[in-house]
């Protein structure tokens, strides 16, 4: 007779990761969602159900800020998708060229900003772009294009795009590295077979390499999406919690921070802040699910 043994070792091996992850991620996440269902009246916490979300989406004072932040967030994401990822792919394609000299140097130089602190990046770019002491106006002046210079970070219509491009500058190394790794994993035989069929140079990239790295591009897109919708640091460092000018750089992260912890004379409201955090979580969850079930399952994969 065979008795089913309980396989304790599975639980034992899982325990450390599960416990740590539960304590620092899962519990706070659900507690935040729980906090969003309460409000504080006269120093006592009372349960109000979805009232905070109703305020957030339908009270004009809140909803205007929320939709503004969400719209800005989408623009921030769009710039990354349109600028960061294509440039990252192009750089990777160039770097993987077998006859490129100093490839390792370029690779490190482009990747280094990624490991720098937001604080340094934000501060350095603020100085570079400063109309008073920055090098941007004098460099443009040197090539006779001074008229193109504007105090970009201080103009409503330019500030968000400028910051998105700064963020692109900082993080372009990540798609580059991932695509670079994917390109290196393409076997030589396939490319050589293509060459025999007359597919070389640029068309080899478009017809052979690109289809093979599509799954990596998908992963990069989803990483960009999650990263952008959780973004906060760069905006906070360069424009402060009010995300000026006139909230034109306000994204969900800064909106949540301002509400949760308060700002200047405005006292913090953890309950509304949690509601915003809950909304952010939902948006990211929906985005990731759309990708996982809508796109990734239909993606064509090639056996290499």
């Amino acid at each position, binding site marked *: 007779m065979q008795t089913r043994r309980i396989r304790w070792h599975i639980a034992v091996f899982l325990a450390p990761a599960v416990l740590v992850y539960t304590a620092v991620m899962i519990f706070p996440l659900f507690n935040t969602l729980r906090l969003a269902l309460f409000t504080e009246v006269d120093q006592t916490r009372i349960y109000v159900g979805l009232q905070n979300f109703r305020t957030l989406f339908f009270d004009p004072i809140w909803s205007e800020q929320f939709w503004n932040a969400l719209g800005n967030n989408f623009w921030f994401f769009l710039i990354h998708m349109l600028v960061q990822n294509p440039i990252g792919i192009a750089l990777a394609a160039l770097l993987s060229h077998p006859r490129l000299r100093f490839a390792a140097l370029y690779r490190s130089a482009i990747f280094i900003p990624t490991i720098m602190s937001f604080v340094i990046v934000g501060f350095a770019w603020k100085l570079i772009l400063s109309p008073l002491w920055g090098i941007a106006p004098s460099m443009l002046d040197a090539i006779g294009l001074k008229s193109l210079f504007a105090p970009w970070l*201080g103009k409503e219509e330019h500030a968000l795009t400028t910051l998105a491009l700064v963020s692109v500058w900082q993080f372009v190394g990540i798609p580059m590295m991932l695509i670079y790794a994917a390109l290196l994993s393409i076997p030589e035989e396939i490319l050589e077979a293509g060459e025999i069929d007359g597919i070389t140079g640029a068309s080899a990239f478009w017809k052979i390499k690109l289809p093979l790295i599509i799954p990596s591009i998908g992963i990069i897109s989803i990483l960009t999406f999650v990263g952008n919708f959780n973004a906060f640091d760069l905006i906070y460092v360069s424009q402060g919690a009010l995300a000026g000018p006139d909230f034109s750089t306000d994204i969900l992260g800064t909106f949540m921070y301002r509400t949760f912890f308060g700002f200047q004379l405005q006292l913090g409201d953890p309950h509304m802040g949690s509601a915003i955090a809950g909304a952010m979580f939902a948006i990211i969850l929906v985005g990731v699910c759309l990708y996982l079930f809508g796109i990734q399952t239909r993606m064509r994969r090639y056996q290499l």
Partner: protein
Amino acid sequence: MTRKVLSLALMSTALVTSAYAQDATLNIESWRNDDLALWQEKIIPAFEAEHPGIKVIFSPSAPAEYNAVLNSKLEAGSAGDLITCRPFDASLALYENGHLTDLSDLDAMGNFSDVAKSAWQTDDGSASFCVPMASVIHGFIYNKDAFNELGIDAPTTEAEFFAALDKIKEDGTYIPMAMGTNDQWEAATMGYNNIGPNYWKGEEGRQALIKGEQKLTDPQWVAPYATLAKWADYLGDGYEAQTYPDSQNLFTLGRAAVYPAGSWEISGFNTQADFEMGAFKPPVQNAGDTCYISDHTDIGIGLNAASENQEAARTFLAWVASPEFASIFGNALPGFFPLSSTPVELEDPLAKEIVGWRDECESTIRSTYQILSRGTPNLENETWGASVAAIKGAETPEALGQQLQDGLATWYAPHQ
């Protein structure tokens, strides 16, 4: 054996603790980490010399984190005995939550005027929970050398003010005024609330606004925005992206002639600038008008209700309220003016000039700080945005007034 060592250790700790218990040690929570040296070298020794047996430790945290750090320390019961108080609602909330003690019965509170105490009182004025320490005064600091060079006198009326700016602009050597809109708060604090009291007649207008008798759409509240709109022409190129430190540097490097200021700049400017500085009051509309200045109550100090050294702490607070403290504090930190009713002789010429305005003008505090910034949308934060929009010309002054009034009316009963 181990147990013996342990109990020995415990015993010795107990002994040490009881030895200390004879003397009270007071810990002060503060956000003024800039003032650490001043407290350690001047204020605390002066107090300890008079009160042997009470030890005082000043333990500040970073200004931006102070409110959050203090709140969590108070909740956890690990906060110091004495709490440096932010003005108005932040401290009022601490009092209402039972973290601060009512100090109305402290004799030394009689040394302060009602305006001085107003920042740390319940709305009905029945309880005072912090001893007022210092206020800051708004006005304009100017480069005296530049003014002499161009033959300009410090302006007193608005017409003279803009004439002076025109003249500086025409000459072109100096940027007429150093202020940016990037950080937003300067536009409201050094702009709107600096020049505004002359329009809404200081306390009279401020109180009427709180009572709901005046509205933010009234001409006296809208007009300052119209004046701010004229400032844009005199700010430096790219002022939209100019930050607060940028403005400070522009002025102290001698590249700008006028700096819309708060008096807290004085000590920094004294060390940075190598030209002679002067100050003028916010200009009045017509010569001879009564002038009003923003003499904003900024720092107080209160007693942690959970402190074990209530008696010693009260002794310290009484001393803070004394003229002796006022004189040490006022002179060590020119620009932070003691609030006690007994006048303090200040040595710094610029600080002396500015504090002298108290005798010539009516004092008031920033219009948005008391009660009006309690709800959402927050009037103070909205005023930052509105002042910036006014300077940039993004919206008309009337539209801005309407917008602020609408926001206030959504939650503040007297305006509904």
